[in-house]
């Protein structure tokens, strides 16, 4: 299905144009313009939800134009059921990021808003790009605005955190660039992501390419040994920066795995699955344990992210429909829930100028509305049935169960620990005794803050109770990914054949018959 209207280009260009427009705006109107543009982008993205044809697993809203002729690099955009929810999540979160920064950012507000808008354009570009080079350009283009967001508007240790974030992600992504180039020469001189997802790459080469992809995506997710940049970056970033980092940037790692690693390198993905699942489980348990020990609210949520993102990678490498759909669900849900939690921390930080749990206790009496919302997000984060996270985590665990019962049992520990650290946090922050010297600062949420948090609360319950609209939209696309990885190999003994479509690549590529491990 092709739409003649350039939805995606508009979604990318509007924020970028907005960033330029901000340079010429009056100081007093900067916030309003940024809000207007992000809201307009949200409105612009909403029709995609209904225009999307969920019966097709192919790319929709396609746009193609030649960008560079030698080598053939295209400006090629499109969405499928995996990227659509992520794009909508992005457009939905950005107005909230603008709102939460309304008063907390008081220096260089113009540049700050411009950076947010540039980030929005680049992030949508990452999810919508269907040319590998274009993808890489968007992927890397996010680094500088994010570096500035952390480094200019961040906390006391911001410069260290910003540089660490930048170097970690850059080292990961340069290897991705080499892999892109190698893939170009190995699979028929194309950068087209759809074509590359059909191409056959020799298994021995897949091994190396997988490692290169892994370097880029595992740092972004972040997976267990590569996560150390995340607590620093999250803690030091301004609230909007933390929200963008946690809700969108981390998703790009998971998105990278499901969009590139699985379909382009199916054999290697299968071969690496045990390692990936082990690392995921370590991340789930280790992240949760670390979260348990934190005295800083932001750090607690940061480590809980490591744990929750472990479920994403766990689900992806189970190679069955529950696992992968659960992983994508978990990405969206983590974006909503953790975004909400970071916004909550931002709100309280504005009042008490402390993120320490010890300084922010007993908020229910002075701030009943705030405490209610905080508890909702916390319960969602620990995966309470009826909230959004339950859906994703349950599906991931169900998928893992097919793969290995032991892995499921271990991963479930993460949920128990999540209940422990989240409930303990709530116990102290919401229900403890308020510290007297802070009491005067504790006003309850005003209208702007309510407007920031309520949309996310609505989504928490909406997805938690009625997840089907998202699942039906991603079903066909996930099946396509699965079709690539379902080519029977010795690496796995999964039994989910009844859910799979026939492999579309069978006869076209005799090179698929290369020896497998």
């Amino acid at each position, binding site marked *: 299905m092709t739409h003649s209207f350039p939805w995606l280009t508009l979604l990318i260009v509007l924020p970028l144009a907005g960033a330029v427009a901000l340079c010429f705006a009056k100081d007093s109107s900067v916030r309003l313009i940024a809000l207007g543009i992000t809201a307009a982008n949200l409105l612009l993205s909403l029709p995609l939800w209904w225009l999307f044809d969920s019966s097709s697993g192919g790319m929709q809203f396609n746009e193609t134009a030649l960008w560079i002729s030698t080598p053939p690099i295209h400006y090629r955009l499109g969405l499928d059921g995996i990227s659509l929810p992520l794009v909508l999540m992005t457009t939905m979160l950005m107005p909230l990021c603008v709102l939460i920064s309304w008063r907390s950012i008081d220096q260089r507000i113009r540049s700050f808003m411009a950076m947010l808008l540039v980030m929005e354009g680049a992030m949508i570009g990452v999810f919508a790009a269907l040319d590998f080079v274009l993808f890489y350009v968007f992927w890397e283009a996010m*680094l*500088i605005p994010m*570096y500035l967001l952390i480094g200019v508007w961040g906390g006391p240790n911001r410069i260290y955190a910003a540089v660490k974030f930048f170097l970690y992600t850059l080292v990961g992504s*340069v290897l991705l*660039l080499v892999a892109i180039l190698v893939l170009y020469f190995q699979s028929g001189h194309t950068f087209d992501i759809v074509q590359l997802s059909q191409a056959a790459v020799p298994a021995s080469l897949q091994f190396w390419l997988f490692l290169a992809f892994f370097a880029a995506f595992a740092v972004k997710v972040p997976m267990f040994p590569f996560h150390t940049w995340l607590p620093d970056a999250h803690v030091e970033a301004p609230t909007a920066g933390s929200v963008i980092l946690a809700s969108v940037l981390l998703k790009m790692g998971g998105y990278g795995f499901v969009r590139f690693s699985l379909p382009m390198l199916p054999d290697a993905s299968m071969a690496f699955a045990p390692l990936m699942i082990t690392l995921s489980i370590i991340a789930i348990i280790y992240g949760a344990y670390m979260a348990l020990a934190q005295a800083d609210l932001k750090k607690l949520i940061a480590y809980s992210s490591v744990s929750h993102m472990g479920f994403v990678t766990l689900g992806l490498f189970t190679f069955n429909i529950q696992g992968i759909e659960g992983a994508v669900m978990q990405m969206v849900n983590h974006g909503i829930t953790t975004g909400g939690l970071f916004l909550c921390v931002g709100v309280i930080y504005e009042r008490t100028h402390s993120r320490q749990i010890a300084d922010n206790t007993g908020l229910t009496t002075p701030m009943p509305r705030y405490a209610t919302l905080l508890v909702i997000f916390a319960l969602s984060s620990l995966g309470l049935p009826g909230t959004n996270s339950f859906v994703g985590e349950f599906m991931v665990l169900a998928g893992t169960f097919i793969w290995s019962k032991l892995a499921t049992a271990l991963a479930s520990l993460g949920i128990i620990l999540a209940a422990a650290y989240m409930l303990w946090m709530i116990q102290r922050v919401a229900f403890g005794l308020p510290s007297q010297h802070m009491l005067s600062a504790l006003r309850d949420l005003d209208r702007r803050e309510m407007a920031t948090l309520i949309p996310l609360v609505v989504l928490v319950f909406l997805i938690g109770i009625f997840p089907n609209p998202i699942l039906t939209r991603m079903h066909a696309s996930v099946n396509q990914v699965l079709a690539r990885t379902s080519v029977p190999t010795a690496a796995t003994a999964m039994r989910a054949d009844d859910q799979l479509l026939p492999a579309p690549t069978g006869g076209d590529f005799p090179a698929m018959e290369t020896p497998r491990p």
Partner: protein
Amino acid sequence: MTFSPGDLFLILPELLVITAACLVLVLDPVLSSSQKDGLAWLSLGTLAICMGLIASQMNHAASAFGGIVIIDAYACFWKLLLCFVAGLTVLLSHTYLREERLYFGEYYGFVLLSLSGMMVMVSAADLLTIYLGTELMSLSLYVMAGLKRSEPRSLEASAKYFVLGAFSSGILLYGISLLYGATGSTRLPAIAAAIAGRSLDDPLLLAATVLLAVGFGFKLAVVPFHMWTPDVYQGAPTSVTAFMAVASKAASFGAFLRVFVEGLGSLKANWSAIFLLLCIATLVLGNIVALVQTNIKRMLAYSSIAHAGYALIGVVAAGVAGTQTGETNGITAVMLYLALYAFMTFGAFTIVAMLRKGGLDGDEIEDFTGLAARHPLAALLMLVFMVSLAGIPPTAGFIGKFYVFMAAVEAGLTWLAVLALVFAAISAYYYLRIIMVMYMREPDPLTAASPRLIMSPALSIVLACAVAGVVFFGLYPGPLVNLAGHAVLTFK
């Protein structure tokens, strides 16, 4: 040698530049100091006419003076780039020299003379003519490096540059003489024909190749022949540094590629091994040493060394590639890299030249502290140049690296691409440091000794050209890629 008047027409751009240079030198003593601005405009006008002429020659391959000089698209590509950079240099110098109180009209004469040498280098097909061009370029640069006569650093730069330059010229000449002994000619086509069937292990050819590589290594400032670069770049007036870092490097690469690919093409296996070693050494040392610099001119000097390393990857790829397309892609990548490098490096040096502290260059990295708060636009431009030098999209620097690495992967040098990209990531650290200092530190309270920016319309034009090149070619490199690709086809 046959000579026809038509030949003179073919080298009209060079003749024009030399004439203008002489005119500047003659007019300089006659003009009063207030009229000396005219010399800059005279130079600019000449350069503009030259660029028009060169552009018109682009599609007609011709040779002059019995094959000593070749006017092909390849030569025209480099000449256009060189004239453009010389134009930017004149504009930059116009303000910078006034600020430095260097009222030498002959400065522009030296820029033009040096330029003419570079133009000869890139269109010569005879080793001696190339040598002649190199010397003309270098001698003018030695003088320009020492123009700040009151400053010991500038004089030291000039002396160092001269001694090492003369030394390297000697080595180059020795290589040429050995090659002449082995082949009986100094013409590149004749040399290529003479060595076509020779064994790779021929000691005479081997020695000549090594000597030529060393000679050119000095001019390109690749490790281990880079020792002069940081001192000279730091000591020379910043406008001269910008000119050296961009134009002299581009011209040297232009001549270097012609000598090795066209003249010594059948010795590929030998020289690509040599350049592979030089390339790795350059990438490693250039990037690592740049990390610890506290003076921005020295940092940019090491960065320019590192960038020569990236360009060398293209040369190695051209040498190693088994196919004709692989070879042309390697050379295209080098040309593209140098052209894109010109915009970002010149832009960065221009900002450095603009920053003054108490009547002197504000060239310590500390001097950039809090620039974003005082001069947001200048800081933004510097940010763009730094991001581009680090090779992060969507800037020209990324496009340059992309094509170089693509050529490397095509030639089967994936490991080299990985190594170079890891060092590119390391290099991001020192470029980021400039951004960090500008944006994330608050400036000290304003005093008379605080660094300040000089501005002038001429500088605005320079910066506009540089940033336009970086951004436009970063987003839409097509035209430049096609131009370089077309130029390469006439080569060989």
